[in-house]
């Protein structure tokens, strides 16, 4: 059993598991941090961004000045943003049989895999994952396509050139594999390969393994996966949460008794408690608005935003913010808000019960009804008519490189009254802000990451007791910035096996058993014999028939009969030679009784010696040795076949035959 690790990002995993002749890809996350090296794509012509000086080498060589621009003391690539794909060379991706998706954040690389690698298999995901994943992809494509950029920079990627560049461009990895964003056609084609599944549904893969999604509690429709055969069980845990937010709670019990547990997608900010961060978010929002400032919240169009809106729903009245407009701007804003309300069966119990009242499960419906929350596909159109300040704007993309957020950063960045509050943990906020410096607006970092923290993981592992744990290497050591925090790593016995990008792990367990069925007529013919209480034995002569990873014992064919019209014998029709089998023996020889029997039969001068493995019975007169061990008995006598047969028969008296 092998694990091919195609992504080094612990929360955007992409691994391939080879298990019992199946090849299963676990998630295909897309690392978008690469976009931080690119200049923002302004939605409205920005004089500042369009007149940046080109960058030249120290020796004055300016051949890169079209591709690289200097902005706020940093160097950025002036091109369509590109993403860092999962490793494609480590394994032939056309051999992947299925892809299991655990949540909508972990499927963003799907079109790259399904459309460009010769993939012919099936993708499994839950319905909300597909629908919201589609929204995220649609938003991404829309953000990038609506600001067309003629240029695609490639000179800087040359290895020799890259070495000469300033950090962080110099240290960017695998730049040659970075790709532009996919198109909407590719998205549609990729999504058409997805088969929808429900929690606890058992899906047979070629009869060899069974895969089952389990609720993971992190996002709408998010799942962990169980991959099991009759005797082996692998659990794949990715992006799970034990907090009470909107999704169905995590199913922990089904993860028990795993041979291997692959653990990814833990919280990216282990020191920040989501409750505290929500409090921080609300207080800073209120303070800014109270002073007449605007609040900008760069965010994804789904996920934490639902919880934030719910918190604000409860908070705005108490904080006297009822007259402040909240804007949610995204090409998919409307669909996201509405989708969230229709996936009732994927929600936590509280929200499910609301549906029967009947009430919308999320209170943002009421915010929309009362005009406190308004949503727009973009800043163009209706929004510009309704726009009123001070206000709170939720919009993407959290990287601050594309989307409507770029416009608001340019618009509000100069005033210290305004605040940008980062709630998504995927991007370093300082790097995200780099091209906007110097910035007068206040920046608050309150990342809200509800995924498991290390305390919860250690409790989980204690509870489900897997034999082996496999995780990204980042989880096996404290965070680099807090090397003394030994509590911020996975602590389990035996120690977790770690992986890094482009590594192949041999998983530490061997398959020992395989399940074989016996045909009823064959079973009928068996005559079991009880050799000790509770254990019966029978010899079986049969043909082992193996097809689709199922093994069946069939009755042996009857002696050859004319084969009718068949001209050619297929090799499988060969009839094995049925030799007359020697009976099988079982039981053990009690030495004392054996010696007595020998004496009864006229042997004298018998000596018994104990050895490490059993006994040696010495017939001194006859110069014969009988070596009795646990699994063998040897009679060693010197060319006296009669004596040997006599002794053999005496030995056989103590054993059972069948």
């Amino acid at each position: 059993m092998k694990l091919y690790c195609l992504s080094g990002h612990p929360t955007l995993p992409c691994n391939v598991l080879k298990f019992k002749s199946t090849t299963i890809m676990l998630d295909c996350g897309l690392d978008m941090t690469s976009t931080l090296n690119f200049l923002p794509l302004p939605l409205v012509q920005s004089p500042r961004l369009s007149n940046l000086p080109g960058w030249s080498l120290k020796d004055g060589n300016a051949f890169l000045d079209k591709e690289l621009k200097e902005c706020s003391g940093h160097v950025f690539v002036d091109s369509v943003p590109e993403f860092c794909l999962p490793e494609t060379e480590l394994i032939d991706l056309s051999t992947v049989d299925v892809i299991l998706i655990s949540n909508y954040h972990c499927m963003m690389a799907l079109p790259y895999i399904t459309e460009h690698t010769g993939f012919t298999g099936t993708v499994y995901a839950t319905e909300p994952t597909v629908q919201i994943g589609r929204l995220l992809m649609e938003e991404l494509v829309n953000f990038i396509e609506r600001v067309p950029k003629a240029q695609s920079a490639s000179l800087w990627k040359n290895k020799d050139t890259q070495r000469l560049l300033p950090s962080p461009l110099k240290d960017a990895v695998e730049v040659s594999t970075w790709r532009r964003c996919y198109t909407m056609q590719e998205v549609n084609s990729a999504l058409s390969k997805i088969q929808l599944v429900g929690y606890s549904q058992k899906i047979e893969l070629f009869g060899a393994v069974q895969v089952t999604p389990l609720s993971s509690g992190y996002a709408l429709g998010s799942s962990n996966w169980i991959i099991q055969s009759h005797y082996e069980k692998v659990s794949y845990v990715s992006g799970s949460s034990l907090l009470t937010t909107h999704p169905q709670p995590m199913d922990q019990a089904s993860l028990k008794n795993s041979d291997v547990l692959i653990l990814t997608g833990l919280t990216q900010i282990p020191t920040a408690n989501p409750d505290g961060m929500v409090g921080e978010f609300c207080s800073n929002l209120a303070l800014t608005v109270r002073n007449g400032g605007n609040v900008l919240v760069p965010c994804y169009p789904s996920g934490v935003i639902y919880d934030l809106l719910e918190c604000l729903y409860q908070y705005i009245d108490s904080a006297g913010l009822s007259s402040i407009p909240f804007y949610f701007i995204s090409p998919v804003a409307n669909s996201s808000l509405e989708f969230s309300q229709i996936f009732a069966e994927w929600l936590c119990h509280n929200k499910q019960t609301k549906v029967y009242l009947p009430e919308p499960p999320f209170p943002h419906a009421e915010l929309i009804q009362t005009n406190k929350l308004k949503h727009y596909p973009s800043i163009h159109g209706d929004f510009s008519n309704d726009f009123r300040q001070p206000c709170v704007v939720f919009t993407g993309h959290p990287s601050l490189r594309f989307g409507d957020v770029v416009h608001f950063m340019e618009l509000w960045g100069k005033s210290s009254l305004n605040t940008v509050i980062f709630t998504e943990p995927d991007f370093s906020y300082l790097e995200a802000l780099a091209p906007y410096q110097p910035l007068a607006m206040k920046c608050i970092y309150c990342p809200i990451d509800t995924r498991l923290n290390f305390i919860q993981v250690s409790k989980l592992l204690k509870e489900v007791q897997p034999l082996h744990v496999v995780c990204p290497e980042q989880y096996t050591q404290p965070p680099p910035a807090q090397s003394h925090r030994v509590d911020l790593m996975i602590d389990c016995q035996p120690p977790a096996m770690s992986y890094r990008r482009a590594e192949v792990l041999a998983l530490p367990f061997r398959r020992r058993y395989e399940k074989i069925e016996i045909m009823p007529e064959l079973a009928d013919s068996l005559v079991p014999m009880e050799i000790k209480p509770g254990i019966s034995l029978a010899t079986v002569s049969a043909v082992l028939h193996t097809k689709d990873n199922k093994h069946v014992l069939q009755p042996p064919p009857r002696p050859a009969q004319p084969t009718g019209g068949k001209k050619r014998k297929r090799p499988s029709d060969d009839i094995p030679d049925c030799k007359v089998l020697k009976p099988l023996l079982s039981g053990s020889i009690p030495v004392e009784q054996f010696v007595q029997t020998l004496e009864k039969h006229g042997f004298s001068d018998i000596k018994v010696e104990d050895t490490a493995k059993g006994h040696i019975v010495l017939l001194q007169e006859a110069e014969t040795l009988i070596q009795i061990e646990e699994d063998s008995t040897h009679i060693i006598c010197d060319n006296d076949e009669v004596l040997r047969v006599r002794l053999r028969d005496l030995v056989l008296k103590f054993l059972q035959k069948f």
Partner: protein
Amino acid sequence: MDPECSRLLPALCAVLVDPRQPVADDTCLEKLLDWFKTVTEAGPSLLLLQENPCLVELLFRVLKAHDPHPRVLSFSLRLAGLFAAQEDCFQYLQQGELLPMLFGEAGPLGGAAWTAPTVRSGWLQGLRSLAQHPSALLFLADCGAVDTIFSLQGDSSLFVASAAGQLLVHILALAMQSPAEGHPSPQGCDWPACAQKIVCHVEDSLHSTATPQVTQALNVLTTTFGHCHGPWTQGLWVRLSPLVACLLEKDPIPASHSLMDLLLSVARSPVGSSDCGLWETLAQTLSHLSPIQAGPLALGILKLQDCPQALKTQAFGVLLQPLACVLKAAAQSPGPPGFPEGATGDSMTVDTFLSSKSACVGLLCQALAHLELLQLLPQRPSPWPQAPLLRAAVAILRFCNGSAAPTSDVGGHLCAVLAGCVRVQRAALDFLGTLSQGTGPQELVTQVFAVLLEYLTSPDSSPTVLKKAFQATLRWLLGSPKAPSCCDLDPHTQLFLRELLPVLRKRLCSPCWEARDSGLEFLTQVTRHWGGQAAFRHALLASEVPELTRQLLRDPESYVRASAVTATGQLSSWGLYTTPTSPEHPEVQQESLFTELLHILSTDSEGFPRRAVMQVFTQWLKDGHADVAEDLEQFVARVLQVASRDLDWEVRAQGLELALVFLEQLLGHPGSRCPYAVALPEAAAPATLAQVLQALCRVQLFEFALRALFDCDRPVAQKSCDLLLFLRAKATPCGGPQEAGASPDVVSVEAALQRWQAGEQGQPLGELEPEAVMAVLRSMDLEGLRGTLAKSSDHIEKSPQSLLQDLLASVGVLGENEADCY
């Protein structure tokens, strides 16, 4: 006993032994016993028994009953004990052989009833009451009760076991002070047999290998040394201390908790002051026990009045060890001098820290709590290691919030264990707050403020931790020194304030109501103390805090509204509350704070904010707040009018408080004078007095107070009564009774009062003339009313007759039901 009770008693006794009429409620029996106890204490029991033969008969009949109810049996045992406490009565009962039948082996002791814990408990309590005189000792010896008590020490019921232990101590003390024996020598060779027997039993138990037995013996000894101070206790200790010393040598030490209690009990008794060996034993124990066990012993030693300095130093060392360990673990390099020698974080403490999270947290919390207690004691060790303690508290807090960066292994472990531990955070913040009583080097104080600010700022601080952090900050702020040149705050504090106020501002906007509440409480306290400090005023007015506080008057959470009311009241008292003008129409003044608070008082649905408003108004009146002084009468009239309608009695009572303050300001202070003593008219000249009464009528204070006099809540009526008595005493010289006589006014007032008393509160009094009111006041029996109100509401129901009647009635009801059913 009064005749009425005597009359009821036979019927009651009959009911008690009637198996068909079980007493459903044993609290009645308890009350009955209490009553008998007062009766026996007040007079001779013998007479009582002779006058009420039904009582002895009750005891006999209970004994003879086939299957008496355990409750009744237990009651009878205790009752007999009460009677037999007096020697003549004891003899009287002995004549009938009643006592052996109750307490001897022929009694319930061997019967089926003995399985009920209440019977065993009654037996012990009966004997406890009975054992008061030498005859009782003989009786105990004859009936072999002591052996039974020994066995009851290990009873499954903790109440029984504990009572058995205490009874042994009581018997021992009785035997030793019995006049018949003279003064026994301390050595013990001539001790009375009973005492010998008990002491031998204790000795045997101390030898035992079973921990429960050792614990029982130690508990008996602890009680003995705690309660008995005769010279014989000295002998007892001489005799038993070697056995105790043997226990200390065992590993592990059995019953270590009880052992420590015993040692401390001995040390506190007169025995302790004369026995040097004891101090050595204590020292030895301290060094043998595990750190978590030694903590309470060390604290006990440090609380002792006179004990050798060396032992105190050792005990203090034990308490400091965990903190020393933390300091060592946190140190980046050998830092400034730490704790005194003996507290250098020994290996046992380190082992405890490393053994498990709960052990580590438990030890730290215990150490912090003990040191906090110790710091407040007058006999706390001197010199007090203030600086290392501060450093340790800061280090713990840094471990807890993950900001420490230790280099040692122990430090790393502590960091992992303590990160986010709310229990330790709370204990450390409390401790840090207590340390504010002392001073420290400036650099350390800066660290203290820095760590407090970290906690106040951190979004991860839980609400309780945040509250403690605010409290500790307040204590440190108020304890900080004033700048030497002027009376204003010192520069460090000013700097800190500038950082603190934005944090407070953010907390006031928190979505968590506990955070908003703690923030407001903090603001109130700081303003109370520093409202006059220019630096504070300047910083506060420059911050948004006052506006936010006003905003919180409309908070959805009632506790927060109440705190906001108190805070705005305080801010306003210091002129720190500026009424904002609306930005769109600067010329339109928004409503004043008084109007806003009055609005809360009349409309808020919760009691807390309304009570807070009344307190603020009372304080404003006392302080002569500008808004109040503007039109004093108008203020009082409006407040009283709203308060009188309030459904919450505390608000009405607070209204009377406000009325009293108003009266005092007009008439002079009641001072230490007895409120209903006749006052001399020097406080106010008659002319002024008339004006005062006119004013009182204008603000309708009389109507408010008279209504309150018939309030259904007793505290309100009491307060009103006091107020009216004060007023009458002050105003008596103004006009005699003949002036107003039976004028129509008086008649109508009296009629209204009668209706109010009957519960018809609807009708107002209307315009009143001062003379009429004073006439009514004079005619009322306010003193009588005050006396009635002073009695608790159940004073009628508490009488013994009522108790007996209740008991009979409850059984009687049962009888009727039976008749109905069959």
